[in-house]
C-alpha cells in the first residue's frame, strides 16, 4: 500500500556539520509537510511544500520537493545542538487528503 519512507533512521553529527534527511513516497503527493519533535516533546510543524521542484529555506534549513512530487529532503547547514530531535515528513495518502501519514522519522543527535 501507499507509504512514506524516510531515511536515515538515525544520524549522529558533530556540531557544525551538515545534515540531510530524505523522504520518498510510492505515489505522487499533492503536498508534503515536515515536522520536528524535540526529545520528550510533540511534533511541531515546520513547513509545507506544494509545487513540483519547490525549494524553501528557513534560516539554516532548506526543504526541497522533487520534480515528480514523490520525494522530498530537509537539509540543515552547520548543525547546532538546538537542532537535536526527530524530523518527520508527512503526506496525504490513500483514503483522501485527510489521512496525514508520517514517515518513520530521522533522529538527529548533535555532539557539541
Amino acid at each position, binding site marked *: 500500500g501507499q507509504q512514506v519512507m524516510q531515511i536515515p533512521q538515525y544520524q549522529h553529527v558533530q556540531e557544525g556539520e551538515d545534515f540531510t534527511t530524505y523522504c520518498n513516497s510510492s505515489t505522487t503527493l*499533492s*503536498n508534503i*509537510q515536515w*515536522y520536528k*519533535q524535540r526529545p520528550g*516533546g*510533540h*511534533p*511541531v*510543524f515546520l513547513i*509545507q511544500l*506544494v509545487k513540483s521542484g519547490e525549494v524553501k529555506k528557513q534560516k539554516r534549513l532548506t526543504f526541497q520537493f522533487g520534480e515528480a512530487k514523490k520525494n522530498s529532503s530537509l537539509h540543515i547547514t552547520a548543525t547546532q545542538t538546538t537542532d537535536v530531535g*526527530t524530523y*518527520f515528513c*508527512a503526506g*496525504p495518502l490513500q*483514503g*483522501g*487528503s*485527510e*489521512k*496525514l*501519514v*508520517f514517515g*518513520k*522519522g530521522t*533522529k538527529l543527535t548533535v555532539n557539541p
Partner: protein
Amino acid sequence: DTAVSQTPKYLVTQMGNDKSIKCEQNLGHDTMYWYKQDSKKFLKIMFSYNNKELIINETVPNRFSPKSPDKAHLNLHINSLELGDSAVYFCASRRTENTEAFFGQGTRLTVV
C-alpha cells in the same frame, strides 16, 4: 491558551483495565486525529474525524473507540488494556486538508 490539550499527560494502569484520554482543541479546526507513537518513535495514524464524523479508521483493535461529542473534542477510550498498548498517544487537529497539523502534548500510557 494551549491550542490542543490532552489529559492526562501520564497514565499508568494495569492490564485489563479500561481508560480514556481526552482531547480538546480551541482552534476551531474541523479535523482531529489520534496517533500512536511507539518506543521507536513511529507515528501511526489511528483515527481521523471531520466535524464529528469518523473519516479514517486504521487497522486498530476494536478495543479502541474514539468519540467526538463536538468538533472541538475527540476522546479515545480503550477497553481491556494490554501491555502492547503502552505508547505515547497524540491528539492533533487541523483546519482543513492540506494545512498544518497541531499536536497536543501527548499522553504517555504505561500498561503494567
